[in-house]
């Protein structure tokens, strides 16, 4: 199946992403920021689908939008945001920050304009199915899986994160 109206969806989703990103860093209210970030994440899941990465898109929705962002909202509700909303929103180094970001942006632009020929259009149509299976075989297969060790390390990282989060967030242990 060929994708339909690719540019339309690409620009639409990209616009949602960028607008969401801008809202994330400009809103006073952290809940509004979180909602903007959720829209960015969902639009990004759409872009993953357009890149024939359905499994990553699914993980993005279930983990990022459904898991991490709920955690964020939960914490925002636990802490008192009324006070921080009334205060100054940007820190003292905001000018330096903007300049640094602008320099980084300039770097990106120069890299992309100069290296455009490095990235020809690599689009090929192939069967969509098998994406999940291919990822699984990269992760777990005893012959072709080259990321099994990394996967185990990732699970260890998550375990450490769980313990760390519990230790830090618990009132009395």
């Amino acid at each position, binding site marked *: *199946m*060929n994708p*339909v109206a690719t540019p339309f969806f690409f620009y639409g989703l990209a616009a949602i992403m960028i607008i969401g990103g801008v809202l994330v860093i400009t809103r006073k*209210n952290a*809940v*509004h920021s979180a*909602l903007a970030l*959720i829209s960015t994440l969902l639009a990004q899941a759409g872009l993953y689908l357009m890149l024939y990465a*359905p*499994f990553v*898109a*699914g*993980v993005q*929705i*279930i983990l990022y*939008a*459904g*898991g991490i*962002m*709920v955690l964020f*909202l*939960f914490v*925002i*509700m636990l802490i008192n945001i009324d006070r921080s909303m009334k205060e100054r929103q940007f820190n003292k180094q905001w000018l330096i920050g903007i300049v640094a970001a602008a320099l980084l942006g300039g770097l990106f632009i120069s890299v992309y304009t100069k290296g455009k020929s490095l990235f020809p259009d690599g689009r090929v149509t192939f069967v*969509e*199915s*098998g*994406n*999940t*299976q291919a990822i699984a075989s990269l992760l777990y297969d005893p012959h072709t899986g080259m990321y099994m060790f990394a996967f185990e390390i990732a699970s260890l990282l998550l375990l450490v994160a769980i313990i760390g989060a519990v230790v830090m967030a618990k009132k009395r242990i």
Partner: protein
Amino acid sequence: MGWLVDYITSYLKTTDKTPGAAGNIFWAFVYIVAVFLGLSVAVIAMNWLERKILAHMQVRLGPMRVGPHGLLQPIADALKLLLKEDIMPAEADGFVFWMAPLIVVLAAFTVFVVVPFGPTHAITDMNIGILFMLGVSSLSVLGIVTAGWASNSHYPMMGALRSSAQMISYEVAMGLAVVSVILMTSLNDTGTGTLSMIGIVQAQFAQHTWFVFKFFPLGLVAFFIFAVAMVAETNRAPFDLPEAESELTAGFHTEYSGFRWSLFFLAEYSAMIAVSSIAVTLWLGGWLRPFPNLLNGPTWDLVFSLFPGVTFLFFAAICFYNTARMPKHPLFKIQTIGLAGFGAVLGLIGLILFVPPVRDRVGDIFWFCSKVAAFMYLYIWYRGTFPRYRFDQLMKVGWKVLLPISLAVLVLTAIAGFVEAPFKEWLHQVL
């Protein structure tokens, strides 16, 4: 215009694909509209049925005034909700307050993109179908949390915190139960499983068993875990703590009224239907009729294809029986006519379902929907029977009972899948 007709009819000729998979926008749109309308009708019918069934469980009659046997009550309720004043608390966060019901409704409805009502009767068949369903249905917790927060009030806040904790906790056990089914789908020659909803049902057909009976009792236990977790996911009794009426007045939607509240209502019921369809697809053979492998052949096909029509005629007969029992009084004239008319419509639908081309196409949808309906009845039954869990007990059930069991089931399923083929071979040699 010719190309348009060609485009439309070209899909009908290739009937082995869903419109989404075939890339046919027109039919995809038709399916979307059909699913959306069907869902709305199902929610309305569910509303009436829940009140009636619950009422009869509780030795009362339920709605009787609006329409014969209260048949028009949901419509009257919907009108009332639409005409009600839409109140927004002064201290509420307007935008988020407005967004929250939309998020919940969108999450609840988007799930139906991949629900397979039949081998070709789905909007689309996704490679990551079940992952998509779990992911999108988990988004509704965002709406609930934001609804509770935006109301800027204590009871909704507590309801929201309760519900987000509850939904996240039960998602874990639910996901593990689902994974054990995905393991079962990989028991074939190639050894690759599938996440596609249609693929899961086809795997059950190919393995000659519903997954609820696979590796008895492992499939049954996984199904039971899912059946418990899905009640918790949809915040229904006995896990209805987020909206516990006697404790938190109405939980996260305490401050909502009118149309916005009805959106929550709609979302709750369509979420119930959605998780029930997951359960039906994963464990109860989806659209497959009973014994598709054992009782096959044209005769059995014919017999089973008569079921939808017979069911509708049965309902029509009930309507006519009750029409005859209506009090013979001028005041009941309109009600009697209405009930007879309703029966006639049901009967007509039943007769249409006997027409061969229709008969062959709706069989899948009928079996799927009747399995889902059984789950809906269970939901109502739970509500009539159980008291409500307390929050710590709910967490205890989720983390200390369901999660270990589902982990054990997952591991045992993997082992069973691994030893099944050698064991059969050994058995073959011994006997």
